[in-house]
């Protein structure tokens, strides 16, 4: 594995890059789904994101990389350890260290026990002890869980993952174990619709959805191949060359994270968002909520103080296109319909 292709060096694919950055700024946006052609750079972008993200502070020795500063989101053990040992005593501060933000790959053949965690086989066999061995969800806490070919994953696993991602908590009730631990993670799923689609019930549980297309114009294609070739010939030099841009993007994400709490959403924009969703006939309120969250993150990335129409317009397609009630056979429709609704809304 070694070195990942730099995020900033990815040619085009702006929508996917923006969606991933929004998810990095505000994990609550609820996951990113990228569907599109083979060989368009979906996996590359996700893997690149791992290298881009700034490291985070985590409790030493905690299998869930708990944040020492955020007591509410800690696992049971960290919480006990940070509680005052007795009356009048001050709690011993948790030891923390800097770790990279986890971007965990969910391999296609993964079994449920590895995903949610299971009985620790070694200790069960060797000592006859019942103890919990955390799974992938634990390792992805506070980070990203990347599922390539999400459309080929077993349905029950996808259900489980979406459920955990939505609740931010993994509840394990199996092998005689009863455990819950924090699992705040951003799901990133990619896939190729030619090989099978995702159930519609699952579609709208992803926050953002982007369509990825292979660039069809020659100069872009040449640029892609050139950069990729340069990277493969000498990864270290290529990464060094792009380090400046990477640092810039990293700074942008960090600034946006700090800034997002103060980004204002005027009533007018809320109304616009609601109107848009009504015009499109999206089910439930998840559409509006995601749209607002994504717009706020987009504004924060821009360094803006408040969400404006532009932000709404930028994020509306990715936040809404998979929520339209549609004839599932009408594949051309959704993006176009969002565009049309946007134009109608902002024309008046």
């Amino acid at each position, binding site marked *: 594995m070694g070195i990942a292709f730099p995020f900033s060096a990815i040619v085009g694919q702006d929508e996917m890059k923006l969606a991933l950055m929004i998810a990095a700024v505000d994990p609550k946006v609820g996951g990113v789904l990228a569907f599109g052609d083979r060989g368009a750079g979906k996996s590359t972008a996700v893997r690149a994101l791992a290298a881009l993200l700034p490291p985070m502070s985590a409790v030493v020795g905690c299998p869930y990389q708990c944040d020492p500063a955020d007591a509410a989101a800690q696992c049971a053990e960290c919480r006990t350890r940070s509680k005052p040992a007795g009356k009048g005593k001050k709690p011993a501060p948790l030891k923390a260290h800097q770790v990279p933000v986890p971007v965990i790959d969910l391999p296609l*053949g993964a079994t449920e026990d590895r995903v949610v965690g299971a009985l620790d086989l070694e200790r069960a066999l060797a000592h006859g002890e019942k103890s919990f061995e955390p799974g992938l969800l634990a390792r992805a806490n506070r980070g990203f869980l990347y599922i390539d070919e999400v459309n080929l994953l077993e349905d029950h696993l996808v259900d489980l993952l979406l459920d955990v991602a939505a609740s931010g908590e993994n509840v394990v009730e199996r092998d005689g174990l009863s455990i819950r631990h924090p699992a705040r993670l951003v799901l990133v799923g990619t896939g190729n619709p030619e*090989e099978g689609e995702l159930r519609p019930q699952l579609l709208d549980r992803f926050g953002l959805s982007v369509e990825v297309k292979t660039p069809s114009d020659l100069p872009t294609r040449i640029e892609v191949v050139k950069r990729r*070739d340069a990277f493969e010939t000498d990864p270290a030099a290529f990464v060094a060359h792009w380090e400046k841009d990477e640092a810039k993007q990293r700074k942008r994400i960090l600034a946006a994270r700090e800034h997002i709490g103060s980004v204002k959403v005027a009533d007018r924009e809320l109304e616009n968002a609601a109107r848009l969703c009504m015009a499109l006939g999206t089910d439930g309120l998840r559409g509006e909520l995601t749209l607002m969250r994504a717009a706020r993150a987009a504004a924060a990335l821009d360094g803006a103080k408040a969400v404006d129409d532009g932000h709404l317009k930028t994020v509306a397609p990715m936040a809404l296109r998979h929520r339209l009630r549609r004839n599932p056979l009408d594949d051309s429709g959704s993006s176009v319909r969002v565009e049309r609704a946007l134009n109608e809304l902002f024309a008046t």
Partner: protein
Amino acid sequence: MSEPAAIWGDALIAAALAAIDPAASVLLRAAAGPVREQWLDLLRDLTPPSTAIRKLPPSISEDRLLGGLDLAATLQAGRPVLQRGLLAEADGGVLIAVMAERTAPSTTAHLCAALDTGAISIERDGLSLRAPARFGLIALDEGIGDERVSPALADRLACHLDLSTVARADLGESLFKSSDIAAAHALLPRVRLPDEAIEALTTTSLALGIDSLRAPLLACRIARIATALDGAIDVVEAHIACAARLVLAPRATRLPATEDDAETSEAPEPETDSAENEQDDRSHDGPLEDRVLEAAQAAIPADLLKRLQDERAMRTRASSAGRQGHAQKAPKRGRPIGARRGEWRAGARLNVLETLRTAAPWQPLRRRAQRAGKSGRLIVHKDDIRITRFKQRSGTTTIFVVDASGSSALQRLAEVKGAVELLLAECYIRRDEVALIAFRGKDAELLLPPTRSLTRAKRSLAGLPGGGGTPLSAAIFAATELALAVKAKGQAPTIVLMTDGRANVARDGGGRSEAEAEALVAAKQLALTGIPVVLVDSSPRPQDKAAQLAGAMHARYVALPHADATRLSQAVMAQAGR
């Protein structure tokens, strides 16, 4: 366009390239025989003796492919013992995938991931492991007819060779010695690829209608390796041309547009000739792109146009996991439904807790018997092993057989299409698979092999033309065959036949009466298989013929003289008992 001898020449080069660097993966399409054997022998001779060459059978189990728990060793040691998988073992060597067109989809997915990342990562059986897996992959495609290697895998393989037209007489001696290979291997890191070469290869790939960006990228790598093989460090035109021939030409989805006619992507036969003439006329002084394109064009298989027509059928096998499927007796996936006593067979999932529970009461006795003393080790016997049982809902495949003939009245075809679309949507929500057979003119055609992909379903339905005779018997036979194949895969088929029952074309081209008799025979044969059938009579005024036919095939008969698409779909859903 290319002669067998020329193909063999390129094959020789590909073998040498594959021996130099794992990046030069090969997709070899050829029947098992002396030609293929000679090519493989050659590859073996050229690869350095230190390089491991492993074979990958199509039916490899996942734990052998990726590695997993070595159960016997685990129990003996009292701690998990890992077994390395084939992909990890092949690291640094060459992996030969035999009968690659029949490789299971999950195996293909793992192969693709390993090719992408150069490593494998597994998360199963309570183990998590990452291991390097950088290997050269030689996929042997013995596909007869339209069986092909999965498109996802083919996209990642650099050189595509088709030796099916090469005869033994065409074979020549190898041009390279193993010393060349070693020299090239050492030279490879120093090879320089100029920007013009990248531009030329990308332009060419676009001109040939290759969508994936992996193709030009792989071509760049091949150009590099070819240069090293040549003993040079600067990539020149000959090397680029070689890469274009090996990588780009076989992937072409259209012939490049000629100057006088820009929109020729779907032009029929004559295009081949004009392109050929063009190529002869042109002198070698155009820009690099043009010359590379020419080189690629020369290597485009002569049957490109025919192959493109077969494109749809070509995807068939790739996505349906081989036709040899067998009913899943002990599925390894799905919802766990308890445990049972079982063997340590590969693939079975050990239920640790149940195993330990079974073993626990016996511990004092067994310790005494074995005089194991006070060692805390658990003694587990073979009888204690408990295997998790899984239940998997067997999927349903609905096969739509649509009458697109003239008699079925063109005005109703749209209605039928609408109904099929609605049914497709239903199936989609249920995660059922759908297949589509259309019949008109002289024959029935499998437009859509069983799939869950709506994108494809929609595309094939939209492209369904109407008019012509009614070859009903051919359609029933085709549907029966497909349904049996689906059944053999462990799925439950349902046939929905939409017709007016007025057969007028027999399979041997006979007239109305023969056709009707033959259709009845076909219907009776279908009845014998016991596959549920719904016959939707789509004629404006329902007649006996369709009802008779329905009787012969023990089908439920639904007459829908004035139905709109919605009602039609409702009726079929109700009749199919779902």
